[in-house]
């Protein structure tokens, strides 16, 4: 069984980018370390053969910050099979008026929101793994 690749945009300009990054880290390091792993999006962007190799033909989940969909687009371009895509900004829609922090650090509320999103994505990971079997 190969691990599901969790790829985040890690955008540096806005809190949504950090949220995507922390969500990916939480899933791959804490919640599902045996079932998932992350891949550097920066490396994928370079077009290097070894970066491509890591995701081409594999099941991927992309976590973007904003509707520019950098993680999704770059993963698709490199041949990754995106089974599910998420945007942290969508997660904010359920938390109107909440201050999630900045692109440097999240607030407690920000962490709560990414915990919520991480749970949701983990359920998806289980589904994907079942399908892949």
């Amino acid at each position, binding site marked *: 069984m190969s691990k599901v690749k969790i790829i985040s945009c890690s955008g540096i300009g806005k809190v949504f980018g950090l949220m995507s990054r922390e969500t990916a880290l939480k899933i791959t390091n804490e919640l599902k370390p045996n079932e998932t792993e992350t891949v550097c999006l920066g490396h994928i962007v370079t077009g290097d053969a070894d970066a491509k190799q890591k995701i081409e033909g594999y099941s991927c989940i992309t976590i973007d910050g*904003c509707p520019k969909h950098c993680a999704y687009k770059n993963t698709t371009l490199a041949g990754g099979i995106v089974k599910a895509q998420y945007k942290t*900004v969508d997660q904010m829609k359920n938390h109107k008026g909440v201050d999630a922090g900045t692109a440097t650090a999240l607030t407690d509320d920000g962490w709560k929101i990414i915990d919520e999103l991480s749970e949701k994505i983990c359920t998806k990971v289980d589904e994907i793994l079942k399908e892949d079997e």
Partner: protein
Amino acid sequence: MSKSYAILPCNGLDKCAGCIAKELAIKLTETTDSQIICPVLYRTVDARYNKIVEEKPLLVIDGCGTRCASKIASEKSLKVDQKINISDEAKSNSITIENNLRLSKDELKLVDIITDKLTKEKEKVEKVSSTVFPQIFEYEIYKKDKFTFKVPKEGFLFNENDCWVYVVGNKARIGVADYVQHSLSDIIFFEPPETGSKIDQFGEAGTIESGKAVFEVVCPVSGTITTINENLIESPELINESPYEKGWIAEIELSDFESDKDLLYDFDKYFEILKRKVDEFHV
């Protein structure tokens, strides 16, 4: 036949506006086939109402500016069909809401007025077809660091609150300038103006909101709102992606464009203002 709704009222029991919201909800269930969602119970056991929500268009009734009912709707990710704000309705009908929790004659009259409006007007407005507006424009660009601010060169007029209008005959489309979407960054919420309502020049034509701020769409022209951009309710990010085309806010039947024009800027003047604003405020 008159339209029926799933009604989510604010039901604020300690304020008169809340009591009016409740009265209006009851009245609507009496005159139409509508059903009430109790906001208190809905919060604790939403399963009780899921069926109603699915079957009927949702009418949200807020009492005051705190908009608790709207907040519950957005919390539960409900698709809102219509919104009524009692305080706003009172203002536009010149009725003063007292502090008394028992409703006065005037306040009951307000309930009747809104009931009428909700049950009758709908059919009339829905038939108005939208005029054809062009989709591609030529832009002038002002650059600041990595940001590019676009302003369409022809056909658009602007007010100083960075809202635009594009006129075709006696109809107009309104929206916000590229500067607004850049300043707000990712727009997550769109509260449309009410279809069928009259609006003054510089009146509020809905609001848009990002994680940073709420922006009130200040209407560049006066008239009647005939259509709103439904797509924005699901995808407010269209305003970021395409503020002058796909991200338009509403269409308006003009009532006094000749006079409105006095207080609008053409491309040349607005471009100057934009440059000033970008240089002064934009970080």
